[in-house]
């Protein structure tokens, strides 16, 4: 008999689940946590929580976020000497911080989401136009990209917001101009790469129209890369909004947002630090979670993006 069975003796480590392949299993937990690192799980949990809050904000907020109780101002959070009537305490007008936080998360997330959507649409459209037309059109679009990139957005926002004023709609539109140039660059680069050798050329060779090539083939293909890069845009918009709120140009009262809460709470950093620290923590936790998950997604799904 010449059958070599020497390798077949199952050991504690070596298993042979199927066919002739050899697998050395990792510990179940080790394998699980290597695929889903704990920090990513925590981040995902926070994102889930934030999405839940966004979806149900008015339902779960214990009070109207604008309701004032001037006799009950600046009460500390429950665990720091306050009462459970206001678990996170109250602000300078006696408004319940938990309720405001919930609404603020909703508003900030909506702003970040919508403006990222706008930036994405703008960036992809311009990027594709540049990739399709090349030549002059491309030069022009590249110039716009350069212009946008050579001016810190904070400065543009500063100048423009002074003009646009306080409308939430206009604020979102403005934030929609944040980061479009990055997305446009990526979209253009990927579209050119696709047209230069890959599947886009081959689809064109089949006789597909540009609309079909860009809409049905290129866009779905580069979507994951774009979505990851938009994910990274998201926390930056939240931070930008808070920075602008700090300078008094963010979301304006009576509307509230995380940045707005921090901006108005900063005067109380010594007398009632929770007013500022609670929304700050929310900003850090959400942006941290999104960035961690975004990085993780990028590492996992998208080696093309740095």
């Amino acid at each position, binding site marked *: 008999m010449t059958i070599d069975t020497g390798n077949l003796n199952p050991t504690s480590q070596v298993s042979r689940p199927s066919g002739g392949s050899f697998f050395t299993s990792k510990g179940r937990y080790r394998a699980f946590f290597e695929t889903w690192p704990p920090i990513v799980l925590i981040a995902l949990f926070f994102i889930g929580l934030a999405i839940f809050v966004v979806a149900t904000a008015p339902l779960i907020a214990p009070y109207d976020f604008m309701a004032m109780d001037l006799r009950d101002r600046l009460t500390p959070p429950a665990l720091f000497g306050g009462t459970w009537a206001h678990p996170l305490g109250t602000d300078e007008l006696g408004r319940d911080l938990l309720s405001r936080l919930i609404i603020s998360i909703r508003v900030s997330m909506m702003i970040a989401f919508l403006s990222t959507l706008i930036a994405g649409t703008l960036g992809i459209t311009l990027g594709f136009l540049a990739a399709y037309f090349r030549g002059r059109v491309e030069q022009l679009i590249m110039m716009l990209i350069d212009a946008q990139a050579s001016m810190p957005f904070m400065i543009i926002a500063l100048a423009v917001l*002074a003009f646009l*004023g306080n409308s939430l709609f206009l604020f979102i539109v403005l934030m929609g101009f944040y980061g479009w140039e990055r997305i446009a660059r990526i979209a253009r680069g990927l579209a050119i790469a696709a047209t230069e050798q890959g599947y886009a050329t081959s689809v064109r060779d089949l006789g597909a129209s540009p609309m079909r090539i860009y809409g049905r083939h290129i866009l779905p293909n580069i979507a994951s890369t774009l979505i990851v890069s938009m994910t990274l845009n998201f926390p930056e918009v939240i931070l930008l909004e808070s920075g602008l709120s700090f300078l*008094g140009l963010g979301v304006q*009262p009576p509307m509230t947002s995380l940045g707005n809460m921090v901006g108005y709470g900063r005067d109380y*950093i010594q007398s009632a630090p929770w007013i500022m620290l609670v929304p700050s923590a929310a900003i850090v936790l959400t942006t941290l979670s999104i960035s961690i998950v975004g990085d993780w997604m990028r590492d996992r799904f998208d080696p093309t993006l740095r």
Partner: protein
Amino acid sequence: MTLIRKHAAMLVGATFLAAATFTAPAFSQDRPDITVAVQQIVNAGALDVLREQSNVGARVFYSIFETLIDYDRQKKDLPQKPGLATSWKRIDDKTVELTLRPGVKFHNGDVMTADDVVFTFSKERFGQLPEQEAARADGKTLFTATASTATEGKVPPAEVAAVANRAWPNLDRVEKVDDMTVRFISTVADPTLEGRISRYGAEILSRRAYQEADSWLDFARKPVGTGPYKVVDFKPDNVLVLEAHEDYWGGKPPVKNLRFVVVPEVASRVNGLLSGEYDFITDVPPDQIATVESNADFEVVGGPITNHRLMVFDKNTGPMKNAKIRQAMTHAIDRDTIVEVLWGGRTQVPAGLQWEYYSDMYLADWKVPEYDMDLARKLVEESGYNGEPITMRVLNNYYTNQVSTAQINAESFRQIGLNIQIEMKENWQQIFDNTSGPRMVRDWSNSAPFPDPVASIVNQHCQNGQQQQVGEWTNEEFNALCIKLETSTDLQQRRAAFRRMLEIAEREDPAFTVLHQSAIFYGKRKDIDWMWSGLQSMDFRPENFVISTPAN
């Protein structure tokens, strides 16, 4: 006298030496260097009292300049007292004669004379000479005075001329009687002349220094006055360094170097005070008082000032056309709660747009509309209000507690059935703008630079006042009374006119309603004995600055 002068000269020389070498510890130990953290030094970027129209300038200007008639600034009722003039008297309805204080020295060492006073109130200083206007139209900063001496003169910016015009609407001329005596002569009978002479904006400048400066701007960045401190260094938005004026007529200034540094963040100012970096901080919000005072080495002083916070109505727009709506709003404001909660009870609800220091002109029995929600609701009902939105334009805490106050009031207005919408605005232009949307309710404040209703209600709400100029409000009867108040010299007539004006503007056809008296708070080292002033000036003269125990 001469002996004193000699001494003074020596002293000046010594100071100069000390300043030049910079390392004279013996000297600096004698008197402390004091740093004041302010939100802003001057809004307009120049140290000219005729350009800086905001009240923030007042706190630094009083250390640099002085008026002929001063106030006892630390007293609550702000009585007038001799300043650079030792005495004054009415010659007639149109004329006031002042005797100048002898031996007053400007920062450049010159002795103040009648010439300086005449110059301070001259057309040239005001930038109102035809040649100046022509030069200004050409964009020049200098002009050649053809009429008199063919010397070169300076062209102040146009707004200086305009402000001077407003401050001195009836001033005909200032006459030199002799070196130490001047006369102010107005074109019409003017009961407010003494008030105007004492007001902010009437500070005496050194004629020689002004004329020798290279341009108006150069002078405005390093002006020469008679105050206890002289300007050493001025960087707008950053720092103003003043140095003791050793020849100051009122005695040796108690501070060697007085620095005003700009620290816009409240938290940073408080931090800096507590960490010992600043000796004084200004604009402490009432909510932060406890924080400062939790440290036994520091305290907060301050209180109501000669400025009232108002809510102003535009009677030409939408529901605001109905006086009942406006009246309802005036009754729905819980002023006492606002003062109690947002101001910690450290200011007060005044008796309408007037201050006690009006003395004779003060109407002690006048009141702001009482807080009565039922009455307010009734008024809204009577008005036939149909739920049309009413917008409140608010700036982002241009005034202390502005946003909070607006939100509290908006809540009350909602409760009386008004559809109130807060519109946050970024600047004053947007507040006044009536092209982008209806202008209905806005915030404002009124100061009284001198103790007479003319300084407030007339200047701000009459025909030439801003409210009527931007087209928010007008009232015929009111306007007729304005003229009477300005020109009549009969006290009873004037009081009657003022009362009727308040009735119209605050009650019958509300143009505005007073929210509360503004207040200002300073955080300071407890070991410094120092009093704040209702005129918002910071007084660092010898009688108002004593360090009880040696610092450091």
